[in-house]
């Protein structure tokens, strides 16, 4: 945790302002966690707004929620969890230094991540077809339900899943970067903190979805 001048020389991948690899790795990991905490607060803001709006317009939110396809949502959750599993295997491969299996698992992660985005895109398209996208064309006809409240639900739905998807896209970019880096032999058993930190980010985005799925799809099924 402290500076050590003597070990500076001749360690590849060690940036000159760090004392040793352990300090560098610890700093990078701590920095990543700290960044994820800022992400908690970023999504936390929207979650808070969602909670307040749902309290105020409970019936409309429940009705809107029932227009989401739970089965598709559940499948997508499973897809994303699978990508998290392959990600953790990629990190594991990096720790034991198997280059080809790092690349294999990273590509799998990228594929599952893309599949998630594809399914999400299919759902969005479906809502578009059904005129469930907020705007002048919004249409929602159910007895005893105010369309404006259902529209507010869909506003949140698109804002929250949209912000989540944006994070997924950024994650996919990071994965591609890692694949290239691993392909060039830049990830080894001695130096793999980039893959670990991308993994942390990927899992965090997964966790956000773990909460979005029940909040948007599930908790208003029965009422």
């Amino acid at each position, binding site marked *: 945790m402290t500076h050590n001048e003597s070990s500076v020389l001749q360690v590849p991948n060690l940036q000159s*302002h760090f004392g040793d690899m352990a300090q560098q790795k610890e*700093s990078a990991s701590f920095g990543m966690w700290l*960044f994820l905490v800022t992400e908690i607060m970023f999504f936390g803001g929207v979650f808070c707004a969602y909670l307040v709006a749902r309290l105020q317009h409970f019936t409309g939110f429940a009705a809107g929620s029932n227009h989401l396809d739970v089965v598709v949502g559940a499948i997508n959750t499973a897809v994303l969890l699978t990508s998290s599993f392959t990600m953790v295997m990629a990190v594991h491969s990096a720790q034991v230094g198997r280059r080809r299996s790092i690349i294999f698992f990273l590509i799998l992660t990228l594929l599952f991540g893309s599949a998630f985005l594809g399914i999400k895109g299919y759902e969005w398209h479906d809502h578009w077809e059904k005129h469930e996208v907020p705007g002048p064309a919004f249409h929602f006809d159910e007895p005893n339900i105010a369309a404006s409240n259902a529209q507010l639900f869909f506003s949140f739905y*698109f804002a929250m899943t949209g912000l989540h998807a944006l994070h997924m896209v950024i994650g996919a970019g990071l994965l591609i970067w890692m694949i290239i880096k691993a392909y060039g032999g830049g990830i080894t058993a001695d130096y793999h903190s980039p893959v670990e930190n991308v993994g942390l980010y990927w899992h965090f985005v997964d966790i956000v979805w773990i909460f979005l799925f029940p909040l948007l799809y599930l908790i208003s099924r029965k009422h």
Partner: protein
Amino acid sequence: MNNVDQPREHYLNADYGIKSWLLTTDHKRIGILYLLLITFFFFIGGAFATVIRLELITPAGDLLTSDTYNKMFTMHGIMMVFFFLIPSVPAVLGNFLVPLMVGAKDLAFPKINLLSWYLLLIGGLITLYSIIAGGVDTGWTFYTPFSTTFSNTHVIGAAVGILIAGFSSIFTGLNFIVTIHRMRAPGLTWFRLPLFLWSNYAAAIIMVLGTPVVAVTLVLVALERVLHIGIFNPALGGDPVLFQHMFWFYSHPAVYIMVLPAMGVVSELISVFSRKSVFGYKFVAFASVAIAVFGFLVWGHHMFVAGISVYSALVFSLLSYLVAVPSAVKVFNWTATLYKGSISYRTPMLYAFGFIGLFTMGGLTGLFTAALGIDVHITDTYFVVAHFHYIMVGGTVMAYLGGMHYWWPKITGRMYPEGWARLSALVIFLGFNLTFFPQFVLGYVGMPRRYHAYPPEFQVLNVMSSAGASILAVGYVLPMVYFLWSLRYGKHAGPNPWGATGLEWQTTSPPPTHNFHETPTVTREPYDYEALPEGGFDA
């Protein structure tokens, strides 16, 4: 430690050319880049303030149209808050000093540090573009539904600019926290850290935890303008008061982002110019952290008349009084530090005195605004304007200038001219009080803020305020001139012209690129002036 060992190579002359500056990862050079950038933003924000004060000399709205005036105070607020005050002490002095004070070669993430500067630059340019393209007229607070539905100015541009600047702030905070945790020199335990580091650490906590919330709030505002979503739009079932909750969750603690690092500067100044350890070091250190934490619990006091529940208002008012205690503790400790000290009246100390005085008045008037019954009357009046200018300008800017004078020899290797500097400190103090003290009266008498024209009976107080502002402007231009002058003609400074104890004074002035010729080891408590050799400095 004589002032003749001017180093042959240091961070300023290690490399030349535009590229060596714009692509640098040296925290000291990035600190200078920040200094240039926020000085630029400060004078833009100051220009808007000048126009505002000129308009308010007469009761009628005769200089500008209402729309222009509204854009002026909006842009003044946005520029000063997001592009000057929030980056001021942390991004300039903090960037320069945090690695030096912990005895490290750089911040933990030098490239991210450079990225932070570019984010502030890009955010600032986008915001400036919004100004040139026609301006923004929502007030810096962006209250909905005015900002989302009714204003037809460049709200999205300003929101995106602030969002990007917000990420700059997040990354700076993140860098500071990791650096202070992971990069301290051998022997530099937490309770040996200079108080400047404690307070910057506390401010970094707020940057990291608060900024994301305002970021996502502004994203929602922008989305609401572009798409047909109505999260804050009452016409679509949304809730404008919810916006205020989310906005102030960050924007109240943001005041502590501005003032905590300033308090850190003052702790250093008071100590070195009294040649004494800060009285109650641990209490001052923990007070910083306490302010950072409590600061997050009080945002509702901006909303006592906005339509929140009475019970919620009670809770927020009570919590607001709790945050007053650590602030009071700091003021008492600074004052007690002077007791039996050996006090020198060098310019930085004058600024520190000015800070304590103005911050005390700003803080104590905070007791008025946090008192529920009185806040009903004074919120959204000039009383509040005066109150937060005492904290943010009287507090933060005084400390920032004090710090600039104090570390100027370390940054540039040259001394500033003492006579002129004392004069400017005095001019700023007087100008400031003349500008903002009348506004307390104005507010209690009932003049609402953001008024382009006002009833004639408020004129005398407004003229006093405008007169003060012109004095204040002179006070702010003076340092610009003599700092530039000193770069060429200033006396050479030795490594430790003030006889201070921090690690930053153990290296040469200006420091070499890697800060220390050999990694320092700390064996003493902070502010141990006994251990220093007698004399040899001119403080």
